[in-house]
């Protein structure tokens, strides 16, 4: 089973990389972008039936630093 974990900076945490990407977009002439936040996507292949609690623990113990980051877990339905 595939699981996607999205790790993003918490609101209010300054994101220098997002800001640099924003500036680069403006430099390329893309207007109308008011903000950019950069995050991470981590894809896991886990055993079927892996419990939500186990996935949550993986996020809290390693995948995200909850001092500055939020995470969201998404189970991916495999196309038949």
């Amino acid at each position, binding site marked *: 089973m595939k699981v996607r974990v999205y790790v993003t900076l918490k609101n209010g*945490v*300054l994101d220098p990389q997002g800001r*640099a990407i924003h500036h680069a977009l403006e430099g390329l002439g893309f207007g109308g972008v008011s903000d950019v936040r950069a995050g991470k996507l981590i894809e896991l292949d886990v055993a079927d039936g892996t419990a939500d609690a186990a996935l949550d623990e993986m996020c809290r*113990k390693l995948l995200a*630093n909850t*001092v*500055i980051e939020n995470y969201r877990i998404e189970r991916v339905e495999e196309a038949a």
Partner: protein
Amino acid sequence: MRSAVIVFPGSNCDRDMAEALKLVTGRAPDMVWHREAALPSGLDLVAVPGGFSYGDYLRSGAMAARSPVMRAVGEAAQRGVAVLGVCNGFQVLTEARLLPGALMRNAGIRFVCRDATLKVENSQSAFTASYATGEEIVLPVAHHDGNYQADPETLDRLEGEGRVAFRYAGKVNGSARNIAGILNEAGNVLGMMPHPERAVEPAHGLTDGRRLFEGLLEAVGQPA
């Protein structure tokens, strides 16, 4: 004084730290590989050195903080053993939650490599006892992720409890309240981005780091 330097794959200031400790304390530290589950007995100091442990994959210090040896370092810290984390070592200590907050990408995006003037904010700790409170010292900095951040309550608490050890005298990396180094609640764990081990002898160009190790020797060193 018995000391140990932790070595991770990707550490690159471990030898500098060992040389500085040997020079000041007269005794070479034990070099402890990250896979070790236990530290040598009778240690007065554990140093977590700078570098790019595990390639700084995922987040700076994240992998190193979960390595077997860090559990032993955490237990040593609990027992009151002095723990010094420099640069990547500071990042590892925050990731291991031995210190609060996090070190993020420098606000200016760029790697910063230069001498930085610091203000000693607290000279009561074992690490800073040989400095005077308010004294300005100069140490080299060399980092990409030195931008210290924590929530306002944590920052207020650090300041209120005298746990900010060093502050940058000017803007260096966007750190909240210009924090360069902090202590844990018990005062036996110090994390700092600047490199005292790279400023211990005249050939280094700077020598203000030497007193940090001399102070430690005085405070926690046992007679040989």
